[in-house]
């Protein structure tokens, strides 16, 4: 019998942690790939005219990066059963070559009998949460390698 990986997880375990960088170039690529051409994500003049400090990242790009942390950990992208977040604070992207650092960590909030694991994602820029209520429900395959 293959031991289920869920048996090795406990509430509070941080299963993954990574820092992602977002540059203006990433915003352009994401706009093209997603079809979201809202000018607040690439046009400083429009962004400031609607009261934003500067060009901001697509909320879905930030959520996509945080989702990467999950799928890198899980392996199978389709093992994410539920995924949601609130875009609590705009991620301002400077006009430089470095960009803005987004730190993402995933912690276990519940291990269910049906093999699903609930996770809470902490997503921060400069120690302030940019996503809140960032939660996912994932299915862990029985034969997933048991490294953390």
């Amino acid at each position: 019998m293959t031991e289920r990986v869920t048996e090795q997880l406990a509430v509070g375990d941080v299963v993954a942690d990574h820092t992602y960088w977002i540059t203006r170039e990433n915003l352009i690529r994401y706009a093209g790939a997603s079809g979201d051409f809202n000018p607040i994500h690439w046009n400083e003049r429009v962004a400031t005219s609607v009261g934003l400090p500067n060009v901001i990242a697509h909320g879905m790009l930030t959520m996509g990066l945080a989702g990467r942390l999950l799928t890198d950990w899980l392996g199978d992208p389709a093992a994410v059963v539920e995924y949601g977040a609130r875009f609590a604070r705009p991620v301002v992207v400077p006009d430089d070559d470095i960009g803005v650092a987004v730190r993402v960590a995933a912690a276990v909030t519940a291990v269910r009998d049906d093999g699903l694991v609930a996770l809470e994602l902490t997503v921060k820029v400069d120690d302030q949460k940019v996503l809140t209520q960032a939660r996912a429900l994932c299915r862990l395959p029985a034969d997933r390698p048991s490294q953390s």
Partner: protein
Amino acid sequence: MPIDPSVVGRVYPPQFYEVSREKIREFAEAIGDANPAYVDTAAARGYGHGDVVAPPTFMMIIVMNGFDLLMKDLGIEFARVVHVDQRFTYSRSLPVGTRVEATTRLDGVRAVAGNDLLKIRTEVRDEQDGTDVCLSEATLLVRPEDLDGGDASD
């Protein structure tokens, strides 16, 4: 001008979408995601899929098509819109070649501090057998028109 609450309950015509190999690759590259299940059929098969699958947040592309319809219908320009929250509940994976239809419903409108909050529900189903693929629940904040000030020439 605030959005008239009588528009709540509007359902927009289903939007069809076919998941393509190149769009999956382009989207995965845009989020910097090197997971082989997006580009390598053998890797995807290793997880039990028939072919490469889309990343979880790829679903937004499909959902956005319905948002576009709703925005046009209500006369809202995208520069006034801020995404407040987004949740996906997936019933199955989204492999290449899948044809889906997304039905968008305006579930609620609420005025908050001069802005309008729109609750939008999108049901994504397999076009062929009608089975559920994903449920999307989103909130959009629409800023009032007057903040756009003098930029109407865009």
